[in-house]
């Protein structure tokens, strides 16, 4: 396997070769560091790259494996973390120069679990400042660029994770998702992004944006890699007050390819919203394929779809402003203008409105729960459009020109309100050769069904095998 193939191979493929001692972690890391060096001037996916540390870790992994101490499928596999995951001894900026010199003493829980699994940290990934935006803008460390067309956004807030995974700069990346920040860049960059159930992956040691809406999760190129990553990072953490104390299954066991009898509903409200016809067609084609594979596909209704946006806005803005209030007072003028505006505006949301939004959340959650008794999954577009041009204030979604930020979050944020698992997988390309994402959402803690359906669709198509021109 040549260096480029190593960079585009899945964790599943690499790990099988590593376990059989046919491939050394040192070769894998060297190939990725070369790929980062070649593509980073265009993409700007990373805030910090760790070449020496990664090479040293690869040599250690190689020795361990040679002497028979193989730790499992992530041993020797490169991982890069969004730069709001605390990493012991490695600066963690949250995408702001205010924290340029912040070096955590301890790993966040997820970073610790990756280390335990033997994964090798390649670096820390660029992000929309403080994870507060869906486009991947960052004046402090430079904007992120889409590998399919560098004039376009990679999405946000986990934009560096999306571009790094899509361009073969890393095998496994992570994001965090408060209103879509895993699924948005996954869709716009043509990769797989899983927002797990709230409470399934620990938030301990991540910079918060909104305590009750933040979800950490994997961003990778295949559904199998999402399952492998979840096997390593999911599970109870007493350091996270929201962590669910439940048994974690082997998520790879879900990847049977069989979706016969699976009930998939697509909310009609999704298709009444602003939507590019090419995206709509790709999603309809995907649903038709799944139906041909034995799934039972039907139209359903989610009447509070639009209300969930208002609910999400009130909760997100109030919680984000509460967290960043002191920073606004001390360093507000150092925060990126649009992010600062959002943070400051949240200070004016009353407690009465915040609580009314939480009441609305109860009602919306009940509606989604009832819907998920009729069907096993809800499906639709992840994004109404393909990746917009960098810094574009509006996008054209079919016949409607709409503001970029609400458009990019219109299909994703509902599932932050409910805390349900939701995945974005590639389901096509536009006529301009830009990726399109399909979103599948399931019942709380039923990642198994979400992954099973996503994997079956993925294996029946070749979208995930395409590579960006960079």
């Amino acid at each position: 396997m040549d260096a480029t193939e190593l960079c585009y191979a899945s964790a599943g493929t690499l790990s099988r070769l590593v376990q059989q001692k046919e491939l050394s972690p040192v070769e894998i890391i060297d190939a990725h560091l070369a790929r980062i060096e070649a593509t980073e001037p265009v993409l700007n996916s990373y805030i910090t790259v760790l070449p020496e540390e990664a090479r040293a870790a690869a040599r250690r992994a190689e020795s361990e494996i040679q002497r028979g101490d193989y730790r499992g499928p992530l041993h020797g596999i490169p991982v890069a973390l969004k730069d709001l995951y605390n990493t012991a001894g490695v600066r963690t900026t949250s995408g702001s120069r205010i924290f340029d010199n912040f070096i955590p003493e301890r790993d966040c829980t997820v970073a610790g679990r990756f280390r335990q699994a033997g994964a090798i940290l390649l670096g820390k990934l660029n992000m929309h400042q403080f994870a507060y935006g869906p486009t991947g803008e960052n004046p402090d460390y430079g904007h992120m660029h889409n590998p399919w067309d560098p004039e376009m956004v990679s999405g946000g807030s986990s934009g560096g994770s999306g571009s790094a995974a899509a361009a073969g700069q890393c095998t496994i990346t992570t994001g965090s998702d408060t209103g879509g920040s895993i699924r948005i860049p996954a869709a716009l960059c043509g990769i797989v992004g899983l927002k797990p159930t709230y409470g399934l992956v620990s938030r301990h040691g991540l910079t918060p944006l909104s305590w009750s809406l933040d979800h950490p999760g994997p961003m990778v190129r295949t559904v199998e890699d999402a399952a492998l990553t979840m096997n390593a990072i999911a599970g109870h953490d007493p350091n996270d007050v929201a962590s669910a104390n439940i048994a974690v299954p082997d998520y790879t066991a879900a990847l049977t390819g069989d979706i016969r009898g699976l009930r998939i509903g697509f909310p009609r409200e999704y298709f009444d919203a602003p939507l590019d016809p090419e995206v709509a067609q790709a999603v309809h084609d995907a649903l038709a394929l799944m139906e041909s594979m034995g799934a039972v596909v039907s139209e359903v209704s989610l009447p509070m779809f639009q209300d969930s946006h208002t609910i999400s806005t009130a909760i997100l803005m109030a919680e984000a402003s509460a967290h960043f209030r002191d920073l606004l007072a001390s360093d507000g003028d150092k925060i990126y203008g649009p992010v600062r505006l959002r943070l400051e505006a949240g200070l004016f949301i009353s407690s009465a409105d915040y609580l009314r939004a939480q009441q609305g959340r109860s009602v919306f959650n009940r509606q989604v729960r009832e819907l998920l008794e009729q069907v096993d999954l809800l499906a639709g577009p992840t994004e109404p459009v393909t990746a917009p041009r960098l810094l574009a204030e509006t996008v054209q979604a079919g016949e409607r020109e709409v503001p970029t930020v609400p458009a990019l979050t219109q299909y994703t944020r509902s599932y932050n309100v409910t805390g349900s698992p939701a995945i974005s997988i590639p389901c096509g390309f536009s006529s301009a050769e830009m990726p399109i994402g399909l979103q599948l959402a399931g019942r709380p803690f039923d990642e198994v069904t979400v992954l099973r359906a996503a994997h079956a669709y993925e294996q029946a198509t070749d979208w995930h095998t395409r590579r960006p021109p960079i």
Partner: protein
Amino acid sequence: MASETPLSHQLFLRMAAEAGLDIQSPHMDDLYAYTSGVLDGLRPLQNLDVNGAEPDMAFRPSPE
């Protein structure tokens, strides 16, 4: 603040000062316009039928 009446500039400045923001900054004009738009956008909250619903403050969705 997403009530029937829009946020007055005077009340906005008073709240901004209480929140520790520099109300002399020229940035306040932008913030006032932006905040007014956000609060307008939250008005539909008042139309939600939340009768009998308690705020969903639980951080953990229950497993099925």
